[in-house]
């Protein structure tokens, strides 16, 4: 299946892009995608604990099951105000 990944704030610098498309095995979960991203962009290993992840408009954990066409967002801790 295919999912789109969008990076926000300084995570765009870590990825070298603001948007990517990732191919995953059927039944893959968010954790599988994150491992693929860390393999492709090793800088994300350093921010493993502080990385926030959303699917669509909701925060999700690594065991969240992905669907074809999902839009995943990765970003650092938020700083509004």
């Amino acid at each position, binding site marked *: 299946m295919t999912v789109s990944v969008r990076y926000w704030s300084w995570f765009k610098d870590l990825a070298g892009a603001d948007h990517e498309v990732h191919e995953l095995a059927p039944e893959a979960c968010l954790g599988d995608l994150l491992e693929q991203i860390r393999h492709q962009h090793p800088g994300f290993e350093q921010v493993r604990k502080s990385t926030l992840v*959303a699917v669509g*408009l909701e925060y999700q954990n690594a065991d969240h099951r992905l669907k074809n066409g999902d839009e995943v967002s990765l970003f650092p801790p938020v700083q509004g105000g």
Partner: protein
Amino acid sequence: MRRDLQVVREPLDEDVLRRGRSASAGAGAVLHFLGIVRGTEGSDAIRALDYEAFEPMAVHQFGKLFDALEQRWPRVESVRLVHRVGIVPVGEASLWVEIVSPHRGEAFESCQWLIDEMKRVVPIWKKAVPGGSG
């Protein structure tokens, strides 16, 4: 509970926002909070902060916070919040919040809670724009 959320790119006009207030005969407290951009980031002087928002998710998460605020402080009758994004120069407002409630206690508590939660879950980030005079 009345709720109003705006994510804007232009400067906040406090007078216009205040004129939009509605308060019932039972209201006894109107609390306004204004967050403005400090001239320093750590020990460095800055000229502005550049705010970026994942806007659809920010709107969604603010909506969930308003739902939770209404559950927790059911007597709060109005919450309005405006967050500016893009480049906000030092001294200008990035955040305006208004809470209307029967008594000051729930207004102060709910406003503090809302801003704390915003800083935890609403996807907005800021980047310092260097070059200030300190």
